[in-house]
Every structure is written in structure tokens, then in C-alpha cells.
């Protein structure tokens, strides 16, 4: 196990310069994610257009490098997806983070760099929090907790 597998360059970069780190003014989907164990707290904003595609998605909050980078990468990946495609991506990411599925670099692109958390069970929640939160924002909103 090498630390560099967890803290890959992509992760370090997105942690240092998170993309889409902003609020989307209402009306939009919104949910809050909490990880009481480590104090992570993030907001995910999501606007779906008339064609059922995600027009804009953003996040705000504080957390460890894994949670910030995961959220930043997520916002890039979700934009432009149809609702059903986003749902499918949630499933695929969940499968990858929990080790149920091997990361498919061709299908996942940069998101595959999150696969390093599988070797660190206590950090899986850091990477998955934003995805659960986005899922909730896409549905009815509310607060998501990893505890």
C-alpha cells in the first residue's frame, strides 16, 4: 500500500483548487452532507433543465482532501448528464468505492483516481459523502449523514 495511491496528483490538485466551488442561486436542488466523525460538512447544489439534464452542479463546504477532491471531480462529471445517467454513475462510483467493482478507467476517467480509498476503509465515507449528497439533491434534498 502506497500513500501515493490514495493521494494521487488529481486528488491533490482538486483539493487545492476545487472546481465549481460556489453556490447556485435558487431554484435548484440542494442537499447537505454531514460526516460527524470527522466534522465534514458540504452543500451540493444542482440545477436540472427542462430536458432532464443536469445543467449546473456545484458544492461548498469543508472537509479532508479526499472529500473535497471527490466533490470537485463529481461536479465536473455530473454536468450535462441526464438524470438516469447520473443515477447510473452514482451506482458505479458506489461500487468502485466499496470495492464491489473494479474501477473502469475508460468509463470513469479521472474519477477512477478515487479508487485508492478502497485500501483505507475509514476513508471510504470521505469520498462517498458528496455522491450521497448529490443523490439526495437530485431527489428531494435534505440532509445526508454518513453516521
Amino acid at each position: 500500500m502506497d500513500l501515493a495511491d490514495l493521494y494521487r496528483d488529481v486528488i491533490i490538485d482538486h483539493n487545492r483548487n476545487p472546481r465549481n466551488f460556489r453556490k447556485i442561486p435558487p431554484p435548484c436542488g440542494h442537499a447537505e452532507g454531514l460526516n460527524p466523525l470527522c466534522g465534514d460538512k458540504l452543500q451540493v447544489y444542482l440545477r436540472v433543465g427542462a430536458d432532464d439534464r443536469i445543467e449546473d452542479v456545484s458544492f461548498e463546504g469543508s472537509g479532508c482532501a479526499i472529500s473535497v477532491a471527490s466533490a470537485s471531480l463529481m461536479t465536473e462529471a455530473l454536468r450535462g448528464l441526464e438524470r438516469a445517467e447520473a443515477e447510473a454513475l452514482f451506482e458505479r462510483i458506489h461500487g468502485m468505492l466499496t470495492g464491489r467493482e473494479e474501477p473502469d478507467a475508460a468509463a470513469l476517467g479521472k474519477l477512477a483516481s478515487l479508487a485508492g480509498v478502497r485500501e483505507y476503509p475509514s476513508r471510504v465515507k470521505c469520498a462517498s459523502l458528496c455522491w450521497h449528497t448529490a443523490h439526495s439533491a437530485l431527489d428531494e434534498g435534505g440532509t445526508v449523514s454518513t453516521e
Partner: protein
Amino acid sequence: MSEATLQAANVASGFEVEAVRADFPILHQQVHGKPLAYLDSAASAQRPAQVIDAMANYDRHDHANVHRGVHALSQRATEAFEGAREKLRRYINAASTREIIFTRGTTEAINLVAQSWGRANLGDGDEIVVTQMEHHANIVPWQMLCEQTGAALKVIPMTESGELDLDAARAVIGARTRLLAFGHVSNALGTINPVAELTALARSAGALVLLDGAQGMPHMRVDVEALDCDFYAFSGHKMFGPTGIGVLWGREALLKAMPPWQGGGDMILAVSFEKTTYNELPWKFEAGTPNIAGVVGLGAAVDYLEALDFAGAAAWEHSLLEYGTARLAEIDGLRIIGTAPRKAAVISFTLEGVHPHDIGTIVDHAGIAIRTGHHCAMPVMDYYGVPATARASFAFYNTREEIDRLAEALREAREVFA
């Protein structure tokens, strides 16, 4: 140990740390291919073989229910159980074993006082005073009690160094104060609180004093009479004993006047559907079959601490605190949270540009166990404006070399995120 002894203990002693480490089997292992450096004793201390063996021997040879049977095993179990109570009485200098109530831990001990003494004695207009640096276990039970009784919770603020603001305490503690509840030693900051000054303020207001001793017991010899408090709560697993067992010490007159908290077996003398007569102290507060092996283990932990050169151990621990503080302070971007002049061997810190959770993973990779998070003291995190800190806490079985390795791993963490 007294404050004076603690000061004297700053002088390096002839404490033989390697000999002590040999008593702790868990320390001798590799984690991620590196020797384990366990710097998380404030979360849970490790247990010496003497404690592990005492519990295993009890389980192998003596286990039966206590206070029940006439058979040999039940008598042995009862003797081991009540014998441990006497060890604890002696260790904390309580007047009587009637004042030693076994609980699941500090949390349950505080809840016992809140629900028994609090519900029987508090109402509208009464105030409970805690401090800003409390562990959640010394906040939430009182909030629940306030909801139930109409009493109000007041908070003594702290200062930037992580000390209680005694001037503010004089304003907060007043005629309405019925109970002052505070931590002997802060788990998040390491601050050793001024018990005598605070207790004097409570006494002059006619209030009772409860000390959360979870972090006090592992670092100093506690004498409840000398502390002059009314309740002292502590946990076995912070003082090198097992989890799931702790003690509430309380003054006998207070405990006697308090109603039972939980009902069931062991806490009664006679039961009929018309009337139940409660048992005497301490069993009045010990409903149900207790954690007998846990009590045996806690008794063995007391034996261990009594056999240890405690003054030497405390001096060693304090030298680790000083050494660790100096080594960590050298690291660029490292901020120590909690810089009170009187501290137990706990160093909370943040590292610029590296979230505590990432620090935890990176140092774990080097075989070093530290705590990261809010330390069940969210108001402390709010005060310093941080979501979490990293915390290294030392026991007498730690070494300077382990601290060197921590410092090295923290520099590596800075590099990963540079």
C-alpha cells in the same frame, strides 16, 4: 499526584520505559510494516498483561454471578468483585466502599447523577454550570436534565490558551447554581483545570461539584477527599483497564438521599407488588448483573498503577509532553491548540493546508496512531474555528523516538500537500 509533585516531576527521572513497555503486549507489533507508535491513549489506553491475565483468569476459573449463589464459584466471583471495589476505594481515598458505584463508564456515571440527583432536586430557576471545554458526556446529560426539569445550563467560557476564564466563572456561578460540573483534565486540549478555585466558587454559592475524571485518572493520583468535590466520575479504559466499566464516586450522604436510577435485580432487598425495598449503597445503583470481568480488570489496573513508580511515570509522561510540544512546534504551519501552562500529556494541533483526517491517514501509514476529529468536544472546535484537530496523547509507555517519528510523518504530510 499533587500539583507540587507534578512540578517536581518535570525533572527527568530514572523511569525505565522499556521495562514498562514489556508489560503491554499490544505495543509490540507492526502496523503497515512499521513498529506501532500508539499515541492515542486519551481515546483509550492500552492494557498491561496483568490486566489481560486477571480478566482471563477470572473467566477461566472463577466466573459465576455475584451476590447470588452459595456455591464456591459465586463466592469467588463476589469476592473478586467486591475486592476490586475496595481497591478502588483505597486508590482514590474514598471514605467507604459504599461510595464506589460501578457504572459502564464516565458517561453512565454522569447520567446517573443527572437522572437521580438532578431530577429529584432541580426545577425552574435552578442552574447547572459546565464549561466551554467539556466533553459531550458532560454537556448532553445536563441538557437532557434541563429539558426534564426546567433548570438552565450555564457555561464558563475559556480563553485562547485553553484555560477557563476564572473571572467569568465568578459571574456565571451564583445563587441559582445548584451544580458545577467540569472536567478535571480536558480531553481535547490537555488543560488541567483549577479544581480548588472552581470548587471554592461553587461552595460559596452553595452548589455541589461533579468532576469528570475520565482524563484525570490516567495522568495523576486522584484523592477525592483532597479534591473536596461531591462526585467524581471515571472510566476503566482510560486508566489502563477494560472498556465498559467505570466508577461514580459520590459522598455517601448524597448518594444515600438520591433515589435509585435503574430498577431491577441486585438493587433491591425485597420485592412484592405492593412495595419494593431498595438495597443499601452501593448496590442501590447497580441494577442487573454487572460487568464482573470488567470490575476484576479495573481492580487489576489499580494494582498495576499502585505497583508502578507512579511519580516516575508521571515525570516521564510530562517530559514527553515537553519534548513533543517542542518537536511539533518546529514544524512549519503547525499550530498547537491548547497551550495552558498546566497540561496533561495531550497535544491537539492543526497543520496548515492539511485536513486533520488526512494527517491521521498519513501518520497511520507510518505506523503511528493518533486521534483526528472533534474529540467529542464540538464547542471547543467552534471556539477555535476549526472543524477538527489532530491529537497526539501520551502515556508512560510512550517514547521520545515515537514522537520523533510523528514529527517526521507530519513533515511528510506537509510534503504530500505542498
